[in-house]
């Protein structure tokens, strides 16, 4: 018998279950792209058969980090840049959980960049949504790792001397096995991509373009957007690392030239970290968290380890 009966619960799921009944109401600015992520998630989760209490959303700090304040699941609003290490450990502790990490572009590609690289490399079975608004929203509009070259803000009065980071390419070289870009202005695509990411066994990275009308671009500047799978102008194989790499490079360049390209870029079937660890005998088949509720588990004792010290 499981101690976590929300996990694998097969009941009907109501569309509104992920919306908190009362407070808190979102405090994002009107027109903020973050609403788009919230809405897409609320739609995607019931469609993939997840109930609020089998989902753990782990966020960083930023406007984006408030996501789980407004999404009714188990939530962990951590510290700036650290959502991924918290999230992946929760998955190792109880791999029945549906773990979704989320945060801003500063949070994920800047201060937490090292964790991004390593979580992708290890291919933890989870979804990571980066709210990419190309700016530090919460701290009032400073230049972020995805801000374009020349971007002016209070901390870069003469314009940004740095070229932006390439989030998709970085995910690819680091080892992510599902990589997509979507946009708040395209809720239907966003929902579908989130569903695919959740269903994917491995590290699924979604670079989610979220407009920040207060400090950066508004929604209008993300339209028209192009879905690379649907457009006849683009033809590449998402299972091919080489072709994906080329397409990502083009997509990252295009954004700063005013063309918003979105879609799936890379899908790979490499085994997840959890599977690799189980294969090596370094992780139990049964979720570890269950063991503490098993009445008859025979806990190992140090007393039985003393032989080699005698």
């Amino acid at each position, binding site marked *: 018998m499981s101690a976590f009966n929300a996990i694998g619960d097969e009941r009907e799921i109501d569309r509104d279950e992920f919306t908190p009944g009362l407070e808190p109401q979102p405090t994002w600015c009107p027109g903020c792209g973050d609403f788009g992520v919230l809405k897409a998630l609320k739609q995607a989760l019931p469609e993939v058969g997840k109930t609020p209490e089998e989902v753990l959303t782990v966020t960083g700090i930023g406007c984006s980090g408030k996501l789980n304040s407004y999404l009714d699941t188990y939530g962990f609003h951590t510290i700036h840049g650290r959502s991924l*290490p918290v999230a992946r*450990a929760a*998955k190792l502790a109880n791999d029945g959980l549906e773990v979704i990490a989320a945060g801003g572009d500063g949070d994920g590609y800047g201060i937490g960049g090292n964790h991004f690289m390593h979580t992708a490399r290890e291919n933890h079975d989870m979804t990571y949504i980066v709210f990419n608004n190309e700016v530090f929203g919460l701290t009032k509009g400073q230049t972020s790792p995805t801000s374009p070259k020349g971007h002016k803000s209070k901390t870069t009065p003469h314009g940004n001397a740095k070229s932006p980071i390439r989030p998709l390419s970085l995910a690819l070289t680091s080892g992510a096995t599902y990589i997509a870009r979507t946009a708040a202005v395209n809720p239907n695509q966003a929902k579908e991509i989130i569903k695919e990411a959740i269903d994917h066994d491995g590290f699924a990275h979604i670079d989610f373009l979220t407009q920040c009308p207060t400090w950066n671009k508004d929604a209008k500047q993300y339209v028209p957007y192009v879905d690379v799978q649907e457009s006849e102008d683009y033809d590449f194989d998402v299972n091919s690392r080489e072709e994906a790499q080329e397409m990502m490079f083009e997509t990252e360049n295009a954004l700063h030239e005013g063309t918003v390209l979105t879609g799936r870029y890379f899908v790979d079937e490499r085994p997840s970290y959890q599977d690799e660890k189980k294969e090596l005998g370094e992780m*139990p088949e049964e979720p570890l968290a269950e063991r503490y509720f098993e009445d008859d588990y025979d806990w*190992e004792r140090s007393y039985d380890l003393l032989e080699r010290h005698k």
Partner: protein
Amino acid sequence: MSDNELIWRVAGGSGDGIDSTSQNFAKALMRSGLDVFTHRHYPSRIRGGHTYVEIRAAAEEVQSRGDGYNFLLALGDSFARNPQEEAYYGNEEVKPLSENLEDLREGGVIIYDEGLLSEEDVAELDLEERAEENGWHLYPMDLRSLAREHGREVMRNTAGVGATAALLDMDLEHIEDLMEDAMPEKILEPNIEILHEAHEIVSEEYEFTHDLRVPEGDHDDEQALLSGSNAITFGAIDSGCRFIAGYPMTPWTDVFTLMSQHLPEMGGVSEQVEDEIAAAALAVGASHAGVKAMSGSSGGGFALMSEPLGLAEMTETPLVLLESMRAGPSTGMPTKPEQADLEFTLYTSQGDSNRVVFAPGTVEEAYEQTRTAFYIAYEYQIPTVIIYDQKLSGENTNVDVSFFDREPAPDLGSTMTEEELEDAVHDASGKFHRFQHDPENGVSPRSLPGQQDGRYLATGNEHTPAGHISEDPDNRVAQVNRRLRKLEAIRADLDEGDTHQTYVGDDDADYGIITWGSSQGVVEEAVARLEADGHSVKAVGVSEMMPFPEAELAEFIESVEEAMVVEMNASAQFRGLLQKELGRYGEKLTSLLKYNGNPFEPAEVVEGYELNVEGSGTDPSAQVRLEPAAGD
């Protein structure tokens, strides 16, 4: 402590197998019925560099290293750098001999490998002359050739052990047994041959001029030879800890390695991750999801853990962290012990500290307090730090095997089951009240992700009972006060059980010595010696750093005329903590400080005491400092 003791020092190059040789020799002494205590001195280098291990053995309890030593086995340093003229590191080849003469007691015994140490190098040391002056007994022997003859050159350690046993009139039985346990067939045979051959040569061809012989002892109980790192690992395992995340750093690596070896066999998970920020964050994540988890590091790595540590405080996530100190600041002296991270460990991370800190003083205490740390962390939903150092981490001593024969304690503490959650307080939207204002002991039971009816938001922001972010002043005060109440409850809980402080000496003594953490053993021995010399002195080794055992310490200080605080740092951090927590007694407290990278020796504490408390005696050695009392 008895007069008849052996302090055997085996010296060589780092990478020459000194560790395993000494480990086996210590076990052989232990099996023969003696109490043993080891001390390791090593450079921050993998191959080469002078290193030694000291084994103190006597029939009665030994709880620290001694003053100096009385038997040297000087092997060579096979990875010594070729000295250029005037290289600052000098002639490394001869260091296993030359560097160890200073501490050798009068009448001491020296075996050195004349196969590896060149005649000219030895001649330069004026060894014969110094031996004459100090009454040392020299037994040069070509260990290298002997090893080569029967096997390989690296087996010269075994030849040295055989020679040692012969000079000490020690039976080879236990040594042989241990070699059989530890060595693969292929190298076992030649090693046994070498052992016996060396023993025979020394017994038959050397004329013994020394008196030292191996002491005789007897244990009532079966013994195990364990380090502080072993003990912490065992304490964690017996507490049901099945998750560790870390990043290597000396000396914390010892526990991390041990846990990583044991956990997979127990269906646990060990994670070596990208940095210490991640390591602590992973431990938080695993614990949040319902697994007993730990992480840790040494100074620099622990600094990186500051923010996740604060997150655990604010989200009330149970967590055990280790802070395995080494000499700082910065990279400092990686392989040298110091107790200078106390203030850092107590206060690092923003906001008012809300954590529990233990500083065990012995191997047994390390085990006991690790269990307590897990109990407190999970019962009170609070991060608990065990602060120790390179000394406790690496010292080995014998412990009764029966000490570990007890029930495991895997309980998750104040965590709810789904049945309990059904009846718990929820708000109108169904969120569970994870952080209620009113619990008297501050502890509001938690749910775990995946449980029915338990969803809530954990956040590093200040939050309402359901976990919503809030800056409301009333809620703020209620939550801060509740989290602080946990510390009061923990203090009361600790006061109820057996004390974690260790007291030695006569209750009615006039003078006191106060120490903390791993300096305890040395102080215990110093007190025994002072008492034997007719001084009226007692001591306390303090382990509870936060919440502080105020009443106990006030009582101790009240009961003496004056007290000397002994610790391994330059700014008297523990004395500062005492004065801060007690708010008085400044004029009663002096300090004895050492921070040269080597732990105190009992004689230094004795000398410091005589000078400090009684105003008599000689100045302590140049590298120990006295810090006079300062009024409040």
